[in-house]
């Protein structure tokens, strides 16, 4: 049903330009990875803290507020490079299970991060409660799945 749409994606100007260039895909991939590094850092600073380790002693709400800007910057880098990467091989992605695992987990992770985790982190004090720990663990699990499935697109 969606296949015609994926075909169209690959036929777009950007899709074809990236697919036909020798350097575009590798460079976009490398920048996508740099975004992953920043995303990992921005998430872990808060998630580890919610789990009761890492930057203990620092107010959780303040860490979450500080990390938010870097989290959004990282996501912007990942989306900006991820879209042209996808466009260049949309049909391959359509038939790739890892791609769909990633694309289903990604909106869940985004929603959880900005709707649930954000609120919980802002409400936490110095000692994270059970709720904070669960939220930190779920956040790590969701983003781990997104990243692992993303890497696996290239292997399957």
């Amino acid at each position, binding site marked *: 049903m969606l296949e015609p749409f994926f075909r169209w994606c690959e036929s777009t100007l950007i899709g074809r330009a990236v697919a036909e260039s020798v350097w575009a895909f*590798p460079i976009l991939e*490398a920048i996508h990875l740099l975004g992953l*590094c920043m*995303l*990992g*850092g921005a998430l872990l600073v808060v998630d*580890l803290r919610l789990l009761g380790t890492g930057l203990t*002693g620092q107010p959780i709400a303040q860490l979450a507020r*500080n990390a938010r800007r870097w989290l959004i910057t990282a996501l912007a880098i990942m989306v900006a490079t991820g879209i042209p990467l996808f466009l260049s091989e949309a049909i391959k992605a359509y038939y790739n299970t890892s791609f769909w695992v990633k694309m289903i987990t990604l909106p869940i992770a985004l929603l959880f991060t900005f709707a649930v985790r954000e609120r919980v982190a802002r409400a936490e004090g110095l000692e994270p409660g059970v709720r904070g720990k669960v939220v930190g663990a779920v956040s790590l699990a969701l983003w781990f799945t997104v990243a692992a499935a993303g890497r696996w697109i290239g*292997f399957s």
Partner: protein
Amino acid sequence: MIERFLGWLGETPWSVALLESLYVWPLVESTHVLALGLFVGTTVMMDLRLVGIAFRRVPVQAFTGRLLPWTHIGFAVMAVTGLLLFYSQPLRYYHNVFFRVKVLVLIAAGINAFIFHRGAQRQAAEWADDAMPSRAARAAGAVSLAAWTVVVVTGRLIAYNWFDCDLQPQPDWVNWAAGCAAGSE
């Protein structure tokens, strides 16, 4: 000497098995990539703090004391998986231009971190609570950010064979940088 050793290493049964395995190699490679989020991720957050543009209210010593153990775990995972990946194809990586640049910059990043922990951090008592760290600490943070960026980018590009020795003709600088045997050898 090195060539002969790496050639032998690449022919050991475990090296061949690792390279040809259907799932082990991809799993090692995926672990290497995902550990970036932990290792480079926590490093970047600390560097941004050192440069003075993030987490200004968090003392630098909280980063070096409480977050650094996680950075070390990330590094251990990257080193083990990285060595395994190298072991799967030693000669190919040895002659890969991107791999060579990566290793050089990796060493530079290590020296930078060593100097920071020996020097700037020792005087940290004076500035650690300040929003803006000392000049030396800011420089260390900036060098670290630049170095790890190069390491990640060249690391990703190792996968491409554009400059491989067996893809001749290559420009002279490529043959020099990749250490390709010049014709007769």
